[in-house]
């Protein structure tokens, strides 16, 4: 009997062991597979990654840092200290605590219900953390670091607060969007070399191609991490940073318009956890952290508009009221969709509506620069009373300079010869000064009290365009193109072959 019982026990044990081992191997393999799916530059861990600094308040006394970890990190802890040259500058660091946001990547919060995110299937949830360092001294270099789990710190990074006075220097990047990690990195590298002393960078929307795709955000952060100068970012939301929840109701709209006027769309649920940006209370909640202004210093004021046609009239009312209040010498508006631009022969009615609305605001107010993206080509022109009568390179009075550019591998074709249409439409108040195709271009602006000097560069760090805007005591502006603006433009004909970006990984 005893023997029989033992055998039965053994058989039971065997079954138990079998299932145990099968389960264990399966679990181990599953873990293995999950581990290999995400590249090391994407997967979250207990270490901080996707670290980014932004301007959330007065740039002279405050900056914010956001970072990401896996969900084992429940608290947001960062340290800051004045950047002393001594070996152990870090001894006197003080700790700051902030906020942690739990974000599911495969099911993101929509308006009323969660949206299933197919492209993030199988990705674990993550924690985004943010800390705002305030009460800092202007024009001072600080060192800061952020923490994952205990003992797992980022390296110390140094960042300088804004000086109250001019000059300021900033970089403007257009759409990163495609080929971000593989190709756009070299554009960021070039910027980091030619503008190593820049104070901040504006990213003009379409930071990625698919707003919710974690892997593309990983690419964007990998590329941005390449900028050795750790400078704050001013991100602008583009149409590719938006998620369309439902189509527009109007069946007469084409695909593009349908997207632009989608009945319901929201900025990607990754946006707010990963950027700490100013909140304009008077605007509807859906525009918080996509519409804001940054008074960088005495002379420079930046206004970020969300051109994704969400409550655009309200945005314009806010913009006008802010413009009337500011005493800054230079006012810059940045938004994703361009003021003047078209591909092929037509302009989308949706864009025209935005343009006409903004032009009305511009007519009543003094806006020096409008920085945009969206077109995947380079276009720079001027707006002002009868400017069309001047030839390129001639010094003349001007109201507003507008710029369209992109860093992405995706390239559109700017229609060079169609632009006089805008000029006719605007009674000769519009002129295209410089364009370029098939080459990623970024702009560097140096702003003093009386001048704004612009230089555009290609990914080799070679100059491509430039002008100087001067402003007299009465606010009258003149523009003078730099000689580089008169050189032969890049076109699809005189540059190398272009193939779309689908082959890139």
């Amino acid at each position, binding site marked *: 009997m005893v023997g029989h019982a033992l055998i039965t026990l053994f058989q039971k044990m*065997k079954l138990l*062991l*079998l299932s145990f*081992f*099968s389960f*264990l191997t399966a679990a181990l393999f599953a873990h293995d597979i999950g*581990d*290999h799916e995400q*590249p*090391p*530059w994407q997967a979250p*861990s207990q270490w901080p*990654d996707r670290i980014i600094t932004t301007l959330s308040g007065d740039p002279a006394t405050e900056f914010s840092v956001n970072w990401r970890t896996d969900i084992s990190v429940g608290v947001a802890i960062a340290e800051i200290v004045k*950047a*002393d*040259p*001594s*070996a*152990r*500058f*870090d*001894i*006197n660091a003080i700790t700051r605590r902030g906020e942690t946001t739990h974000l599911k990547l495969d099911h993101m919060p929509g308006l009323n219900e969660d949206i299933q995110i197919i492209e993030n299937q199988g990705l674990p949830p993550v924690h985004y953390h943010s800390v705002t360092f305030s009460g800092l001294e202007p024009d001072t*270099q600080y*060192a800061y*670091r952020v923490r994952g789990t205990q003992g*797992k710190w980022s*390296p*110390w*990074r*140094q960042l300088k607060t804004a000086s109250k006075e001019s000059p300021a220097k900033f970089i403007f990047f257009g759409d990163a969007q495609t080929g971000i*990690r*593989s*190709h756009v*990195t070299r554009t960021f*590298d*070039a910027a*980091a*070399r030619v503008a*190593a*002393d820049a104070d901040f960078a504006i990213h003009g929307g379409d930071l990625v191609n698919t707003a919710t795709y974690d892997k593309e955000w990983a690419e964007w952060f*990998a*590329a941005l*991490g*390449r900028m*050795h100068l*750790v400078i704050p970012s001013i991100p602008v939301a583009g149409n590719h940073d938006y998620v369309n929840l439902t189509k527009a109701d109007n069946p007469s709209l084409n695909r593009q318009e349908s997207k632009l006027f989608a009945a319901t769309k929201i900025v990607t649920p990754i946006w707010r956890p990963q950027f700490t940006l100013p909140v304009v209370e008077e605007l509807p909640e859906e525009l918080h952290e996509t519409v804001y202004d940054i008074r960088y210093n005495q002379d420079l004021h930046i206004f970020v508009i969300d051109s994704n046609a969400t409550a655009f009239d309200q945005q314009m009312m806010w913009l006008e009221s802010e413009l009337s209040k500011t005493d800054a010498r230079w006012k810059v508006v940045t938004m994703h969709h361009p003021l003047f631009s078209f591909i092929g022969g037509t302009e989308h009615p949706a864009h025209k509506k935005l343009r006409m609305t903004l032009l009305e605001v511009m007519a009543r107010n003094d806006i020096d620069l409008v920085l945009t993206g969206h077109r995947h080509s380079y276009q720079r022109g001027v707006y002002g009373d009868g400017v069309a009568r001047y030839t390129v390179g001639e010094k003349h009075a001007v109201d507003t300079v507008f710029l369209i550019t992109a860093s*992405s591998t995706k390239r559109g074709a700017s229609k060079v010869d169609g632009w006089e249409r805008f000029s006719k439409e605007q009674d000769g108040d519009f002129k295209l000064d410089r364009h370029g195709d*098939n*080459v990623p271009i970024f702009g560097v602006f140096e702003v003093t009290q009386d001048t704004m000097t612009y230089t555009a560069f290609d*990914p*080799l760090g*070679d100059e491509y365009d430039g002008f100087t805007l001067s402003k007299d005591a009465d606010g009258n502006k003149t523009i003078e193109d730099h000689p580089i603006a008169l050189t032969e433009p*890049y076109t699809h004909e005189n*540059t*190398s*072959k*272009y*193939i779309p970006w689908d082959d890139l*990984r």
Partner: protein
Amino acid sequence: MKPLTFFLVSFLLVLSLFSHPDHTDQIPHWQKATGWPDRIITTFSDDPATTISVTWRTDSSVGRTIAEIALATADARFDIQGQVYRAKTEHVDLEHMVTEDGERHSLYNIGIGPVHYHSIVFEDLEPDTLYAFRVQGARGKWSEWFQVQTAAKNGPVQFVYFGDSQNGVRPNWSRVIRMANQKVPTANFFLHAGDLVAKADSDYNWAEWFDAGGFIHVQTPVIPVPGNHENMRVWTDGPDGPTVRSRTTMWEPQFTLPVEEDLPKTLHENAYDIRYNEDLHVFVVDSARFEFEDQAKWLDKGLSETDAKWTVVTMHHPFFTPKAWDTRDIDDVRRKAIAPIVSKHEVDLVLTGHIHTYGRSSAHVDTEQTSRLAEGEAYDVKTVYVISASGAKSTLLSNEEQLAAVAGDRKPDMKEIALERIGLNTPMFQVIKIDGDILKYEARDATGTLYDEFTIVQDETGNKQLTNGAAAFGDTRLFSNTGKYREWWDMR
């Protein structure tokens, strides 16, 4: 499959997994090898005008891989013209390390499997041209495109020199290299004068060094110099036998460097020279090994034969060390072997580390010249000796005599040498710019502030005149007038 067979298979499978404990959870993602390329670094192994050497790492699953290079044009899809080359692959066991001198079981690397280092030398390139390249791990797992400029045959050269990074490399040294890159984003190369890490065989330490530099190590070619901390203890005859110091087995796989056939095999890729262009020739001496006679002969020959206007010798150990340490025989042996060669050829710069402090001295032509001249006044000089450090470790020196000894103030056997500038408790990087007859030197601290500067003008006969810049006369940074110091043990 019968239940019993299944049972056995499962059992063996699980057993095999347990016998190689999975430490992946403890290894930071910035250390762990994967199928993706990491620890990418650009070096010189041949003519800097026509070649670019790149080395990278993957896990051991990547057996054969490739790299791609294209002329860097401004075009969006410059990469269409890319050309693919097969990489050389080396299997590196991180736990059981075997050198020419003996073997070592690295306790730092327990549980870390073997890794593969891959390298490529892109050849037949055009001088003074920007190239874009990328490297692959497993199929389809590419690095981003990096852009590197080949050397111009002549014209100005600019480089950055760092002393020991060694301690607090990822947390603290990263701000130094980033500041250097921000101040000199177009440098032609970065030179690291030894003791890059604290523990020669620690994969974690090297991960820190590579993570701190990141893309900077790739876009600006690196000249690495081995130091005593690149040596590890190896057992020559079993675990109970005697031990000696030997170069880490990680050095050679992770840097692709020139091989000097005239030198013993142990010095290959450790002592070498780089003729950067018409005007500049850099000689790297391995001061942490003992073959000084061989190196002295090789250095003498190289310096005799070169027609470069400016010569730089870099080695980890300075000829002059603080008194307390000066009794070590090996320092004397080294100085007696190498220093006379440097003097004989009036090498322009000797760039060193090891002391964890900053010291700059001159070998004067006028041996009676004792005091520093005022700003703007020039004196004849043969060689400038620099000791520097970029890491968080700072040697506590306060005694005046020691300070002087650091920079070799009037050593009995080298009377012409006088101290010009010291700095304590301050990680530094040095920017050296050569343009024809003029050499400009700057030492900057981690916040980018200028601390020391001089200019040397060389005439056609090779006579050199040194003029100290204003920063050389600023307040001396000592422990008494700088931030609080603490040893580096608490740093992560």
